[in-house]
């Protein structure tokens, strides 16, 4: 086998030649642009894929189609004016973006947060996590072709959005959590509604499991696909469900608790490779489903012991005084670790505000794990990483 006789050089259209032995089956490679306008790239992601038939040989990720230069914009506004801009990064988890920014400013500015506000932040933050994961799980169903699961998730997400609307008047970009507290109180009625929602929602998670997670074809499509080993995940700086899917129990709510998370009892979900291999798409997907149950647990606890009191110092709604210096603070956003690196020169607004966007870091690993997959798997892998282009491009 493998004699190098009778090798002919065949010229390629793009220049150069390729060696062909007699009896070789050779197929041509094809360059395929997935995106920037494609139903399954979750925004304007563009992946240039080199394929052999349907098998992906190599891929290259192009981003920046949604770039607004958030970091430049916020250099020109005051500390409290930044929050609306943070909303527009990860628009599916705006509350958490607000939270991360507020915590970073509070840390640098030594601002005291009322206890009630901390509880409200946890309740709303976890509710936001549920909403975000519902979106992720639903669109993941859409990616693999199960449209009904998507609508089931949207039906439940709608309820959380109505709660948010009642809380702050907005459905998507909330601007609710501010440096120093939150912009409005949660009334007893709202707390009751959130409580009702959790009671209603817990059985619905089983419904999603029945319909999608444990569906044979779904497992067939996702288990063993896009395997991300732990060392690779760490090397590429993946965090959140993507990292936990590879088996590492890293959750900032447990590891470096912020807010009052150390007082709550919940489990960190990690992938176990039940259906396929550790770190495959099914693991990453399942983490989100299971985390929704943990979020419900946290909300229940927070609702039980939320204290009375103030939700913000009114003067902090105008602006915050921040001393000269810098701080870096990370929170566990639904998509991973959302970090705010804030530099202050002691003036009214940030001198520099840099964001570690979890989707930005997670999507970078895509070429590594999609090599050798099929085009249909590419869609599944992108979905399992769960990106929000608003955050990737900022």
């Amino acid at each position, binding site marked *: 086998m493998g004699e190098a006789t009778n090798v002919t050089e065949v010229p390629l259209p793009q220049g150069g030649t390729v060696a062909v032995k007699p009896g070789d089956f050779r197929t041509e490679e094809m360059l*395929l642009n997935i995106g920037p306008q494609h139903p*399954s790239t979750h925004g304007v992601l563009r992946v240039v894929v080199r394929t052999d038939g*349907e098998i992906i040989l190599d891929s290259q990720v192009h981003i920046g189609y949604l770039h607004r230069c958030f970091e430049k914009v916020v250099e020109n506004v005051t500390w409290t004016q930044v929050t609306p801009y943070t909303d527009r990064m990860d628009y599916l988890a705006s509350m958490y973006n607000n939270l991360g920014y507020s915590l970073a400013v509070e840390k640098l500015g030594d601002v005291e947060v009322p206890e009630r506000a901390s509880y409200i932040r946890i309740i709303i933050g976890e509710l936001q996590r549920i909403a975000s994961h519902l979106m992720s799980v639903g669109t993941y169903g859409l990616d693999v072709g199960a449209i*009904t699961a998507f609508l*089931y998730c949207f039906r439940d997400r709608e309820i959380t959005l109505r709660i948010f609307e009642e809380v702050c008047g907005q459905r998507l970009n909330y601007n609710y959590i501010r440096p120093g507290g939150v912009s409005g109180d949660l009334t007893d009625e709202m707390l009751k509604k959130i409580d009702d929602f959790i009671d*209603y929602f817990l059985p619905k998670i089983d419904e999603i499991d029945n319909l999608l997670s444990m569906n044979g*074809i779904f497992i*067939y*499509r996702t288990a063993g696909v896009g395997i991300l080993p732990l060392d690779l995940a760490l090397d590429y700086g993946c965090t959140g469900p993507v990292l936990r899917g590879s088996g590492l129990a890293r959750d900032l709510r447990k590891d470096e608790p912020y807010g009052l998370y150390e007082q709550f009892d919940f489990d960190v979900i990690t992938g176990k490779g039940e259906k396929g291999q550790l770190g495959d798409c099914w693991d990453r997907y399942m983490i989100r489903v299971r985390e929704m149950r943990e979020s419900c647990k946290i909300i229940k606890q927070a609702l039980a012991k939320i204290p009375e009191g103030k939700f913000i110092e009114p003067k902090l709604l105008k602006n915050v005084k921040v001393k000269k210096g810098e701080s870096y603070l990370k929170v566990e956003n639904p998509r991973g670790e959302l970090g705010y690196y804030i530099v202050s020169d002691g003036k009214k607004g940030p001198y520099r505000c840099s964001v570690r966007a979890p989707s930005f870091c997670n999507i970078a690993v895509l070429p590594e794990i999609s090599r050798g997959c099929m085009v*249909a798997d590419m869609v599944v892998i992108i979905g399992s990483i769960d990106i929000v282009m608003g955050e990737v491009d900022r």
Partner: protein
Amino acid sequence: MIFGGTMLSNGLVFARYSLAEWIQGLLGDRLEMIPEWILFPLLMLAGCLVIIGFITVFALFAIWMERKVSAHMQCRLGPMEVGFHGALQTIADGVKLLGKEDIVPRHADKLLHYLAPIIVFAGVFPLFVVVPFSEKILISDINLGLFFVAAVGAVEVVGVIMAGWASNNKWSLFGAMRAATQLVSYEIPLGLAFLTIILLAGSFSMVDIIHQQEGWLSNWFLFHNPFMPIIFLSFFTASLAECKRAPFDLPEAESELVSGFHTEYSGMKFSIFFLAEYAAMYVVCAIAAVMFLGGWSTGIKPLEAWLADSAGNPMREVLSNTVHLVVIVTKSMFLVFVQMWLRWTLPRIRLDQIMHVCLKVLLPWTMVAMVATSAIELCWPGGNMVLTALTIVIWSIPLLWTLKAILDMTVGIFLKFVPSGR
């Protein structure tokens, strides 16, 4: 014999009785003035028009049904504005599609781009020639019926490949390749299922096959022996793949290939693809009903006997035809509903997995079932009550489960309060 093929001449005799009677009533004695050689193409054309009419009406209804079924499965209402519960929505959409600009991409092969939808439709349209609706309401009972279905069904692939190629779009090409792979492979289990039925019925003719299954419900080929349900499931799965319906909708997978082979089609050309898809859905379901579920037979022996005894009783003949029409359409529509049900429940399967399912699951199982069935047919020609009873016992669990699921979906919806959000 001057005019050899019976098929061509058969093809024109739509409803030997109903249509002809109508024409006779209309024209009366003047009919004799029309020479036969003019009547011949006219009737041929009439048959075609009737098929097109049926396809269009069915597609209108099926698209509405698909929307309603999907909507109710997804806790929403679906179209509600145009007509009663949105019944006219499809017509409104059709008008919209007609008014749309017909776009041909630059550098596309214009001729092939234009021909592709026609060929796809031509691969489905002739199938209706052999689809029976009742003893008298059928266009032609070709004595090679099932073989005709297998042959003509293969033409559709060519149109799909043509569409994918001519669009000058990589996604379309992917879709075409997937379609070719999938459709050609799934013809094998489909053919084996045909073969089993031909073996049992001893005929290719649709009417013969139905006549073999008349009498009690237990005469249906589905209950013939414990292996027949395997053949049925295999046939139904393969027919899903042939229709490119979920979970086998890879050629048009919207989340992967945008829209697959019809990405670059708009307006009327697109709606012809759509029409062909829905027509194919009905055809495969009607053929499944004929092959396994007794066709137009009600499954109640005395009723069948009473209906059949229509000598000199024109009213009963009309009644018989009507009942049979309703029965076979109901059976087919139930299977169409199952297709929709699957589509809105299951995720899409991957290309290599589709081949795996075909070659390593369906093919061996169908093969085993076919060999077993022929052995059984050799031992007990014409079926055996014990075997039928055994079939029903063995398959009772999936059968009951299916019944329960259907009851849950129909009656259950009314019993269970679904909170619509707060």
